[in-house]
């Protein structure tokens, strides 16, 4: 890493394998990579969420069919994963906005806010999970 500061074309270090298996990421790093993962997840599954919205708003019978559909454990579980992705993305996003405003940039508070993001998004997921079930 000593040469990195002097190398003008230094690459960003983005190796997925390293992030997942080789590095021991600090918790703030996990918040960051999970923010990205949850974002991709939401982008990809937006088509499914739109399908749910479309059918549920289409008619009384459409709504009932979606209710039945959401009764399947696997469907519910998938939706719960997306609820987590949404909550995590939202909480981590608010944290990043605060960091942009130079709030909580020092190491101790950055660690603390990372833990808050993790805990709050899991708690929100649990809350909506209970509501959903």
């Amino acid at each position, binding site marked *: 890493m000593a040469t990195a500061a002097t190398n003008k074309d230094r690459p*960003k270090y*983005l190796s*997925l394998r390293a992030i997942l298996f080789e590095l021991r990421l600090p918790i703030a790093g996990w918040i960051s990579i999970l923010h*990205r993962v949850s*974002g*991709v997840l939401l*982008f990809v599954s*937006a*088509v499914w969420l*739109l399908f749910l*919205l*479309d059918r*549920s*708003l*289409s*008619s*009384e019978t459409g*709504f*009932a069919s979606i209710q039945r559909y959401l009764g399947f454990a696997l469907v519910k579980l998938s939706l719960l994963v997306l609820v987590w992705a*949404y909550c995590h993305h*939202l909480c981590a*996003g*608010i944290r990043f*906005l605060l960091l*942009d405003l130079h709030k909580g940039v020092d190491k101790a508070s950055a660690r603390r806010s990372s833990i808050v993001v993790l805990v709050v998004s899991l708690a929100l997921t649990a809350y909506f999970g209970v*509501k959903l079930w």
Partner: protein
Amino acid sequence: MVNRIVVGAHYGLRDWLAQRVTGLIMAVYSIIVAVVLTTGAPIRYAVWRDLFSQGWMRVATLLFATSLAWHMWVGVRDILMDYVKPLGARLALQIFVLLVISGYLAWTIQILWRTA
């Protein structure tokens, strides 16, 4: 000669800012809708339909969807720039993503203003 990369980031403060502004809009919408849904009557079809037939809700949801489209574009584009290096593949994927996002937006408008 200006040596620009066509599928690069056009050095964008605009995108950086758009990412944040759209995120904020969606955060506000999410909180409002979460409160409306969890504090209101149990969600039956009539409740669900009436919520989305109100003018403010349609406009707010359209604002949300527009913000989401822009937010998704900047986010996915950043990821493609990080992980897809061959320019042809990157351009192809970026076009595909733009088409998908446009489709999402069009579908949302259709759902919101459909006369059921």
